[in-house]
């Protein structure tokens, strides 16, 4: 980069920095600490607190170093060398403390408070103020998660700037003037931003505090360790605070390459699940009821059950890379089956292959620097929240953002939305590839073409269910020269795919049907007994329902809740003779499982999660797993031994070495046949669904405050014209009927949804939407108004499938 460099002197030391650098940043480079409150490296400078005064030679007045940029040959003197700057800083601290209640003993920030620390380091020590202090009602509950103590606020505007500049959720504002200036929220309004916890973390005093951590601990009680968020594929770096081995708080950890220092509220506050009282701590086997057993006993049983039988594996998206790899190897070498899958969507074709091989090359940094970004079938805020923040950052830097989706997303203030029906996605992408029309899709194409290498297409996993969308998006990317990647929601979907938990792909995105690729894996694994690509998740469940599978392994997945066809999942569970479940809790699989294997939670595991970009990030074991629970890879390795085989690794290091060799990014992928076009969608209304951020998912269990603040009850969203045509009214209730089931839900009418489509969230309280689906996340639906006399609302109970005849 050819940036202009500027050399200046601070406290007698010379430093050379790029032009435009703030003095406070240049001082940091020299290791000179200037006290500050409002300054934050991710936020625009504002100069609100006046704490960072420095003297600049030749200038009559003091300057705030957080708002003043460097100039050539500037001579800056900080509190270390200038009495004037020192006096001003001491005076300012005394001033900031005038109205401060000094209630540190009951303040959650006490012990880790920048105001305490800087008052000690740079302050006057004593206050001359003897008059009554300003008093407010305390605390004010901005939401179920965030409390505001206005007395403690130093009016630095970090929180309000975060909401303006970063999240765009402008719920709080600085209000009034002078001594009555305060952070305020509109009356009756709640701080309903999924990023609200970040304001708590960056508040330099204890004015904003989080309810789940209220009065829970002091910094010296905590053992703090680095980890990675298990909730989505954004891969936010977290600091995990534990008191007596129990997780009590999670904070975002700065990593400019990933999360910039932010985390969403789910990652921050849904930390209770590893400490759930329902964790299983020993293996369980069903004889009469489920009874505790030793691992050896259970492995023996499983070996018996699987001997010469047809076995299939389903996994979730939250195994580590290592565990996924061990699973892939176990299934293929020990059980000679390729019936294994971690996905919930249909085949992703060549796009998925590229993603599996690590060839997409889109990173957060690429997104941030992009000049044009097109999202297809991705609600970034709800599915991968920190990616949403990066897209907003790119937009602030001038990127043109387009969203092709069926429903408006929270990018609406920075992006052009192209709302379409599920079956129109492929057509729009073709229009985008042509880039000639004056319609928004054409403009998006033109913007991508203009951006060239700086164009990015982000394809949500949901889009892969839409007819022809995956292939069309790949074609659009090559036509416009944009970089393209898939973005899947769950924390390690990408790692599972790269490690080969897929019916047709071996580790590193090597198609099992391609002899050369298979040979590369066989060099490490030895002969792979079965070459035929296996069944995908849907086909596995169908085969189970038809009794074509004898033993089904469910590894960290609950098809009853996760799979987009609840009835099929139930039929499968009822008709497969043996079910082995690896999970943290019994959950809804309790009545069906023949054996439970207790798994370790993410804070107890050693391994890696792979972000949507393909970045592998380390998880460290922060504490032992409860009881005799084991990390999944150890379960797989021991199971292989019990079955008279061997996975070839005894330690995690050996496993990692093997895995590293196979999933290293490859140069190219073999040709891939175009995906078969899924059946065309019927005319009429089309229902689509995807999970919202705070849903009834198992990892959010116990996060009552988070749910109180952000969770919505199930609803159905329709376009006004569709509402009129079907006789629905906003605020009323509707009966939805699909091929799979029916439900009754409150109606929301909005123009921000494509005509002819109907949205239902996947898993909110009141409705598990998979009871309405038949295998994909979209389906034909009919709507009618519910009358007061209508029966009880739908849900799992209504969708009980008929028993398959034996």
């Amino acid at each position, binding site marked *: 980069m050819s940036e202009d460099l500027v050399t200046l002197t601070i406290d007698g030391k010379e430093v050379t920095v790029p032009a435009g650098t703030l003095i406070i940043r240049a001082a940091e480079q020299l290791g000179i600490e200037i006290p500050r409150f409002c300054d934050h490296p991710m936020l625009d400078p504002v100069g609100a607190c006046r704490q960072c005064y420095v003297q600049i030679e030749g200038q009559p007045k003091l300057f705030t170093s957080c708002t003043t940029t460097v100039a050539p040959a500037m001579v800056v003197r900080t509190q270390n060398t200038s009495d004037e700057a020192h006096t001003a800083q001491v005076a300012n601290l005394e001033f900031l403390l005038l109205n401060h209640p000094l209630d540190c003993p*009951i303040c959650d920030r006490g012990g880790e408070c920048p105001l305490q620390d800087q008052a000690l380091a740079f302050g006057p020590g004593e206050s001359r103020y003897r008059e009554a202090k300003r008093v407010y009602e305390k605390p004010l509950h901005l939401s179920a998660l965030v409390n505001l103590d206005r007395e403690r606020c130093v009016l630095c505007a970090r929180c309000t700037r975060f909401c303006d500049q970063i999240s765009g959720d402008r719920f709080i504002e600085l209000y009034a003037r002078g001594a009555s200036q305060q952070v305020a929220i509109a009356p009756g309004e709640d701080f309903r931003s999924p990023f609200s916890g970040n304001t708590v973390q960056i508040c330099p005093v204890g004015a904003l505090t989080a309810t789940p951590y209220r*009065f*829970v601990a002091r910094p010296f009680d905590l053992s703090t360790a680095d980890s990675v968020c298990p909730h989505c594929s954004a891969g936010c770096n977290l600091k995990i605070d534990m008191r007596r081995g129990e997780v009590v708080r999670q904070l975002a950890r700065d990593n400019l390459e990933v999360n910039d220092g932010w985390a969403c509220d789910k990652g921050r506050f849904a930390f209770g699940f590893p400490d759930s009282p329902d964790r299983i701590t020993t293996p369980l086997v069903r004889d009469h009821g489920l009874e505790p057993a030793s691992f050896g006993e259970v492995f023996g049983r499983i070996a018996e059950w699987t001997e010469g039988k047809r076995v299939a594996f389903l996994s979730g998206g939250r195994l580590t890379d290592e565990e996924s790899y061990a699973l892939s190897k176990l299934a293929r070498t020990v059980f000679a089956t390729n019936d294994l899958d971690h996905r919930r969507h249909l085949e992703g074709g060549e796009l998925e292959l590229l993603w599996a091989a690590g060839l997409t090359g889109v990173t957060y940094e690429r997104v941030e620097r992009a000049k044009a970004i097109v999202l297809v079938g991705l609600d970034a805020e709800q599915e991968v929240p920190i990616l949403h923040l990066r897209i907003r950052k790119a937009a602030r830097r001038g990127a043109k953002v387009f969203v092709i989706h069926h429903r408006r997303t929270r990018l609406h203030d920075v992006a052009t939305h192209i709302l379409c029906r599920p079956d129109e996605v492929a057509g729009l992408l073709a229009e985008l590839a042509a880039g000639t029309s004056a319609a928004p899709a054409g403009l998006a194409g033109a913007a991508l073409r203009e951006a060239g290498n700086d164009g990015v297409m982000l394809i949500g996993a949901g889009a892969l269910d839409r007819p022809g969308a995956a292939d069309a998006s790949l074609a659009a990317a090559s036509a416009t020269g944009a970089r393209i990647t898939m973005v899947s929601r769950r924390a390690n979907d990408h790692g599972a795919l790269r490690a080969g938990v897929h019916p047709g792909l071996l580790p590193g995105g090597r198609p099992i049907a391609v002899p050369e690729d298979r040979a590369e894996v066989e060099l490490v694994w030895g002969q792979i007994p079965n070459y035929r690509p296996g069944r995908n998740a849907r086909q596995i469940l169908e085969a189970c329902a038809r009794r074509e599978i004898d033993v089904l392994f469910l590894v960290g997945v609950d098809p009853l809740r996760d799979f987009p066809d609840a009835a099929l999942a139930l039929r499968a569970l009822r008709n497969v003779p043996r079910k082995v479940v690896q999970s943290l809790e019994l959950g809804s699989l309790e009545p069906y499982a023949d054996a439970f294997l207790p798994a370790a939670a993410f804070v107890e595991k050693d391994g890696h999660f792979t972000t949507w970009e393909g970045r592998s990030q380390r998880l460290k074991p922060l504490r032992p797993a409860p009881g005799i629970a084991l990390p999944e890879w150890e379960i797989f390795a021991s199971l292989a031994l019990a079955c008279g085989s061997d996975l070839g690794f005894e330690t995690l290091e050996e496993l990692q070495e093997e895995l590293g060799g196979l999933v290293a990014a490859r140069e190219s992928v073999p040709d891939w046949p175009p995906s078969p076009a899924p059946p065309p969608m019927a005319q009429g209304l089309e229902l689509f669904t995807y999970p919202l951020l705070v849903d009834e998912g198992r990892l959010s269990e116990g996060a009552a405050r988070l749910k109180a603040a952000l969770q919505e009850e199930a609803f159905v969203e329709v376009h006004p014209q569709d509402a009129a045509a079907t006789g629905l009214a906003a605020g009323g209730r509707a009966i939805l009927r699909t091929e799979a089931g029916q439900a009754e839900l409150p109606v929301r009418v909005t123009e921000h949804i494509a005509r002819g489509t109907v949205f239902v969230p996947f898993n909110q309280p009141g409705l598990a939407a998979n009871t309405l689906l038949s295998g994909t996340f979209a389906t034909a639906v009919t709507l009618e108004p519910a009358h007061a006399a209508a029966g009880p609302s739908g849900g799992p109970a209504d969708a009980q499938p008929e028993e398959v005849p034996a």
Partner: protein
Amino acid sequence: MSREPAPQPDVLQQVGAIAKGMATVFKQTFRKDNTEQWPKQIVAPPERSHIGRHLLNKHENGLEKCIGCELCAFACPADAIWVEGADNDPENPTSPGERYAKDYQINYLRCIMCGLCVEACPTRALTLTSYFELSFTSREEAIWTKEQLLEPPPPLGTDPVDREG
């Protein structure tokens, strides 16, 4: 390495030193005995000597002075104190203000009676008493709970365990 032999002190000096030492011995031998025959005889310790267990004090209206701030735990050099704060129920508060101690424990196997916790306490909730009759037969017994610490100490010499001794 050889050392220089120390110069020989003269005999008179040596005798003098012995006589001085023996004088001290005899003086002590015939002094009045200071040993207290505890627990047969209970001598009240000087007022405010603060040599015994802690007390968690209450306000006159019955509310606890402790606000669960953990400053005592932070100050303690022996890591003897465990505090867990919680939100007061506004209808039925345990202490004045928002915060109270949900749990409070002192481990007397660790405590060295230094009093730093008392100095740290911002509300004068925690004080040391003169009740030193602490004897335990198990580790658990040595960890005093909040209920025990809120109880003012009995007069010295009334603990049945001590009487047996």
